[in-house]
């Protein structure tokens, strides 16, 4: 058992089906009599729909129906909702203009749904969609936050004057101003956090199905949180009873946040399937994914850091404009507020912090949570300005960080931005990272690179993350429309095997293995006898899903609670079998024993006895299963230090990442192999953001210029180095596993580390992400010009 439990790099249970091509992703599923949906989408970024003519399309071969927004409106379908209401500086709720599942009056971004064709084949649906004629009154679009906030800018929504969704602030303004007043040095920085397209390799897909005989609606969808989708579809969009709707999220090919949200397409499939009483399937192609999957990031920020003469941080103020896109997506409002400003203390003891955030509507694809969601943006601001401050003060960046770290003995640590950090050893992680990266030897490596004509740079990032957002009462008070607990059910079979039902959803994270390890460790059941069940609202009683690196800290804790209940009941059965008092029964790793004797009963026998209760306590129910819900007392706060080292070819501007060290503290680690894999993937996405990726809209037309992999640069194997990953373990004190969460750390840490390395190599802070060869070359050119002018 010892090689299967907590702390072991167990090989994944789910892999066999994936490596043999036997996974079941949504698009692999086909239902009898299934029809296909294809959307006619807006070619314009902003336009008034004058008329839509679907006559020709309706007559095309194979076409079953053509629907427009007006058809949807007749059925009184609700719009897509935002599930988190942010209140602005004055206490007014944010502006959440109606978001119809098919546009009615206006289209507000390229790709907005204008009509849908339902046909017998996908080819026929697409042919007919091209035959739909739409007469538009084309309007001037606005795509960036700075322009959108200028007086006289085009307004995306009539009910959001000035394109303002909210003007929000957080922190102690007066205290922060006072801190700046007494500062010996102030560092200022202007940053753009570039807009990203999440691009899970599996495009979104959905099938809606309706059975009139039972009035049952079934939705197959690429979701990270099927229960949340059921709740939204039932309670807000359709007004259906939850017990008549089943949402199945089968194997899901990556999410990174983009598959949290309730989208128009799956909603249309459900609506059309109920109307036509036939299954309706839609699968996104990649260009549709670029146009409609919620994007991430897109912040424009000015930040200032006040320090005393020794570089001790006194105050920090941040002003951010966040692009919401054309509509408010499911959790969009929370990302640049509660998931952002609350993390602006970083790993430091900065006593006064004040943040102002303006959320802005533009004629672009909606923006919502993407791997890290707000926390990468916060870390980017903090760690870029700290590095810049160190350079200005001519203090070693590692040393400046060390001077300002929250010390090990200060935990639990209350920050000035509401968080209570649970535990950490920030200096230890830094020391380890410096050692692993041979930080001391960098100067020599830089000199050697210079001999080859290369610019070499090194950059640090000491990041903080908040995972497992909770407790529900607190997030509710901040505007969340849902609770943020998780549920679990453990059910033994008579022959000793176990079902574990979890409301978390695995779309690459390896829950089928990690959660089985926890149960194996706690209940003494061999790994191969445990089946983790997830992704189906009919099989899993309740759940909130997977995002924000919450699965193990919240979902895993719920499983631990359920396991405790199993053990409690097992003790009663064991006491009966061993003719002892319950109080005298001890439990350890799958074995019940009577204290002080050699009497013992294994878990398997307890399970059998529970279902074949011939010799059984009189007052006890048969069966061995337990449900539990877990609502955490606090967030968890993983932290760590990443070190990036780059070489730049000054002739071409090409940056090569030559070394990467990550030292992370995720608390207790259940499966180190899986955790390291999460770190690798996160780093790759962070490197992608810093070096390669960026959504680009044409400022005049609002056209998406990066609508395929030919123009949106995805990280490839040869863009990336191998990573050196180290770990330290400071357990989380407030959950039963002592775990913190690891899914987003790499994506949070990497952009700042890499940009700090690039700015170090270039000797200027003035470069934005992505640092493409062209962007780097331009900086080098302007420096050459400046040098020549001197």
């Amino acid at each position, binding site marked *: 058992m010892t090689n299967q439990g907590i702390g072991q790099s167990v090989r994944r249970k789910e892999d066999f089906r994936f490596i043999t091509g036997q996974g079941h992703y949504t698009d692999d599923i086909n239902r009898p009599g299934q029809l296909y949906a294809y959307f006619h989408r807006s070619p314009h970024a902003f336009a008034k729909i004058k008329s839509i003519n679907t006559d020709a399309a309706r007559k095309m071969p194979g076409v079953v129906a053509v629907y427009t927004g007006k058809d949807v409106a007749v059925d009184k379908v609700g719009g897509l909702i935002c599930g988190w209401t942010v209140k602005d500086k004055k206490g007014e709720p944010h502006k959440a203009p109606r978001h119809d599942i098919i546009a009615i009056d206006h289209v507000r971004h390229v790709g907005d749904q204008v009509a849908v064709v339902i046909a017998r084949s996908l080819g026929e649906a697409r042919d007919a969609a091209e035959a739909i004629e739409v007469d538009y009154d084309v309007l001037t679009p606005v795509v960036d936050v700075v322009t959108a906030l200028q007086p006289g800018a085009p307004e995306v929504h009539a009910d959001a004057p000035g394109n303002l969704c909210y003007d929000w602030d957080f922190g102690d303004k007066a205290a922060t101003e006072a801190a700046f007043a007494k500062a010996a040095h102030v560092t200022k920085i202007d940053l753009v956090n570039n807009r990203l397209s999440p691009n899970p390799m599996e495009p979104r897909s959905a099938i809606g199905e309706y059975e009139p005989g039972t009035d049952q609606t079934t939705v197959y969808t690429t979701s990270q949180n099927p229960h949340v989708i059921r709740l939204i579809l039932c309670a807000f969009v359709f007004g259906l009873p939850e017990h008549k709707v089943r949402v199945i999220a089968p194997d899901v090919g990556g999410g990174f946040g983009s598959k949290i949200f309730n989208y128009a397409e799956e909603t249309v499939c459900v609506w059309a399937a109920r109307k036509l009483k036939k299954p309706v399937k839609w699968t996104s192609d990649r260009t549709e994914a670029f146009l409609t999957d919620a994007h991430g990031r897109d912040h424009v920020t000015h930040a200032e850091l006040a320090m005393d003469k020794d570089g001790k941080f006194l105050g920090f103020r941040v002003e951010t404009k966040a692009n919401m896109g054309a509509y408010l997506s499911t959790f969009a409002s929370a990302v640049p507020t509660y998931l952002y400003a609350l993390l602006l203390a970083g790993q430091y003891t900065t006593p006064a912090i004040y943040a102002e955030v303006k959320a802005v509507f533009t004629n672009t694809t909606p923006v919502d949570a993407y791997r890290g969601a707000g926390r990468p943006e916060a870390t980017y601001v903090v760690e870029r300005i700290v590095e810049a401050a160190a350079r200005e003060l001519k203090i070693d960046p590692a040393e400046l960080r060390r001077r300002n770290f929250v010390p090990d003995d200060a935990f639990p640590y209350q920050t000035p931005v509401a968080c209570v950090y649970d535990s950490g050893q920030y200096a230890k992680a830094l020391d380890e990272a410096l050692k692993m990266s041979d930080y001391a030897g960098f100067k020599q490596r830089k000199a050697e690179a210079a001999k080859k004509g290369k610019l070499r740079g090194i950059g640090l990032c000491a990041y903080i993350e908040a995972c497992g957002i909770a407790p529900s009462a607190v997030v509710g008070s901040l505007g969340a429309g849902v609770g943020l607990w998780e549920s679990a059910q453990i059910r033994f079979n008579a022959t000793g095997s176990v079902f574990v039902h979890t409301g978390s959803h695995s779309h690459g994270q390896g829950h089928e293995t990690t959660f089985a390890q926890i149960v194996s460790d706690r209940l003494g059941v061999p790994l191969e006898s445990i089946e983790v069940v997830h992704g189906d609202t009919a099989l899993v009683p309740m759940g909130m899903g997977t995002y924000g690196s919450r699965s193990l800290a919240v979902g895993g804790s719920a499983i631990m609670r359920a396991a405790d209940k199993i053990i409690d009941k097992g003790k009663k059965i064991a006491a009966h079998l061993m003719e002892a008092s319950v109080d005298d029964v001890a439990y350890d790793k799958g074995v019940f024993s009577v204290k002080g004797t050699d009497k013992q009963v294994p878990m398997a026998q307890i399970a059998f006895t529970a279902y074949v209760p011939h010799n059984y306590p009189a007052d006890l129910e048969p069966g061995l299963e337990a449900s539990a819900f877990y609502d955490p007392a606090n967030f968890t706060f993983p932290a760590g230090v990443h070190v990036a080292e780059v070489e730049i070819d000054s002739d071409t501007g090409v940056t090569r990442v030559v070394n990467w060290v990550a030292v992370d503290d995720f608390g207790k680690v259940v499966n180190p192999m899986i955790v390291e894999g999460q770190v690798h993937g996160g780093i790759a996405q962070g490197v992608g953001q810093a070096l390669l990726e960026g959504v680009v809209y044409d400022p005049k037309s609002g056209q998406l210029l990066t609508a395929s992999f030919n*123009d949106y640069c995805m990280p490839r194997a040869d863009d990336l180095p191998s990573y050196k990953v180290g770990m330290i373990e400071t357990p989380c004190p407030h959950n039963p596993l002592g775990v913190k969460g690891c899914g987003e750390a790499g994506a949070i840490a990497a952009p700042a580390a890499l940009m700090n390395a690039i700015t170090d190599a270039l000797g200027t802070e003035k470069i934005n992400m992505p640092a493409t060869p062209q962007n780097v070359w331009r900086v080098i050119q302007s420096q050459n010009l400046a040098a020549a002018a001197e």
Partner: protein
Amino acid sequence: MYAFNYHRPKSLADAGKLLGDASDGKFIAGGQTLLPTLKNRFASPSDLVDLTGITELSGISVSGGTVSIGAITKHGVVATSADVKKAIPALAHLAGLIGDPAVRNMGTMGGSVANNDPAADYPSAVLGLNATVHTTKRKIAADSFFTGLFETALEESEIITKIEFPVPKRAGYEKFRNPASRYAMVGVFVAETADGVRVAVTGAGPCVFRHKEMEAALAKSFSPDALKGIKTDPGKMNNDIHGSGEYRAHLVGVVAKRAVQNALG
């Protein structure tokens, strides 16, 4: 894709006839450019005439200082051909830089040259090596083959049969990839041939072109340093989100130097 008829003739004569009979036919070889175009519904041919069943279009031979490559020879075959590697290593090197391994297993030389994508690699080798394009109707010198953006001297239903590359004294290719698509943002093929030095630039402009100033400089001294100070007109370069005219013009100089270095080995 829109619907089309598909034909796979066994002879060039049949291929020509099938295309002639079609209302709006197109030849397809490896299809690595054409099929993505069709999938995006950017074109709607009535008929596709597949040339890959015509065996006489296949094969590589070397004789009398000439490397002759059949039009449907795949990039992967050119890249790994011992004959090509020996005679014109730069050509094999270039072929190995096209697309990715799976694309190289389908894409053909004739298809790439006939399509004349401004970011394709092969046109620079054809032009840089002063190759001769053989078709079902005639022989076309490289200098008069590439006529503009996606334009060539090929007439309707004229099929490339093979391309003959004179073996140069030395040659080199260097490619600066578009970071996203991995097509050539700037590719430079330099060759010291019997008729003098040739420098062909692909990716940078709307069509592959010869860089006469560089040719003159390299004729005097075939070394990277000879290219120092030679400028390329940014106004004649492509300009997109990945690279402005200025950046591409700059890269032409850098990449050309590296191509010369490659040629020198």
